[in-house]
């Protein structure tokens, strides 16, 4: 009996020592600072931009609500191997995105992911939106409102995607974005982005329709 217990403890100790170190948000914050990520992304909310000039001064998107906006699995993988999200360079209408976002090595990416996921907004309520191919959401997104004018989205037929270039792509939005954030952003956009080149749809779309659009966008592969 004693032998069996010892063997069991030995196996457990071995398993523990072989498992990778737990990701640490404090270490992630240190890495974020040390690597200069804060030069382009601010992480202390609330939103600071008040004018168009403020927005144009920014070199990259704000991340103070990253934990409410992104899906953890996607963010971890993206930090290790970042692919352009915007077809155009941030804040530019003339230059294409050069796709030169710095990469983080595995351990650093895990810690930074942990740090960014700890940055949440109280204005994003959890569990409100579930991905759903709602016909109403599709109709609003593709026909009634101009969403596709600025955002790429998955196409059904031969082309991989359709849509415009000035906004972030929504191809893969179902893996990248938290569905509840999509709705919160449509409903109270100024909390997250007080100055942005996307129209405010709150007050134009009914609350139910903003939910329909969020459900639909959350299905994008």
């Amino acid at each position, binding site marked *: 009996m004693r032998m069996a217990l010892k063997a069991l403890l030995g196996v457990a100790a071995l398993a523990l020592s072989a498992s990778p170190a737990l990701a640490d948000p404090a270490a992630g914050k240190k890495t974020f600072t040390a690597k200069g990520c804060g030069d382009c992304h601010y992480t202390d909310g609330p939103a600071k931009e008040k004018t168009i000039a403020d927005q144009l001064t920014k070199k990259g998107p704000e991340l103070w609500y990253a934990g409410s906006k992104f899906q953890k699995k996607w963010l971890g993988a993206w930090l290790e191997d970042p692919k352009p999200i915007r077809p155009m360079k941030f804040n530019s*209408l003339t230059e294409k995105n050069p796709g030169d976002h710095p990469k983080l090595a595995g351990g650093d990416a895990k810690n930074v992911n942990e740090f960014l996921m700890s940055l949440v907004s109280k204005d994003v309520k959890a569990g409100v939106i579930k991905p759903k191919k709602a016909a109403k959401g599709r109709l609003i997104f593709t026909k009634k409102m101009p969403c596709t*004018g600025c955002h790429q989205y998955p196409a059904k037929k031969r082309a991989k995607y359709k849509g415009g270039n000035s906004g972030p792509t929504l191809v893969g939005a179902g893996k990248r974005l938290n569905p509840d954030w999509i709705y919160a952003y449509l409903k109270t956009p100024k909390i997250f982005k007080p100055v942005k080149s996307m129209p405010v749809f709150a007050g134009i779309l009914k609350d139910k329709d903003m939910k329909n659009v969020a459900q639909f966008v959350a299905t994008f592969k």
Partner: protein
Amino acid sequence: MMKSANAILAGLTLLGLASWVQAGALAADAETTFKFYCAQCHGLGGKGDGPNVTKNFPVSPRNFTNAKEMNKLSDADIKNVVLDGGPAASKSPMMPPWGKTLTGPQVDGLVKHLRKLCKCKGKQG
């Protein structure tokens, strides 16, 4: 008497200068507003050639430098479309409703900026 006349003249000059500077600032603001919101589709120079306009774009955004076309619209027509979107003028929903985004002065500034681009006064009355 002469002194007070001079003072009044100086005052008026300053007032004129201030309103000229203010008008200049508003025009600059209108251009900034245009480039930030409208140029995505209408292009930085307003020719309808923004980065969203690829071969798959379903409509041709208006070329604001086309005086002939722009003269068919009154300032009120332009304002309505900016505020309520393309469908307000039986045009495409690709033109967004900006009524909940832009302030009144921003919209008025945009109308003036478009008139500057088309070098036209538009339909009167």
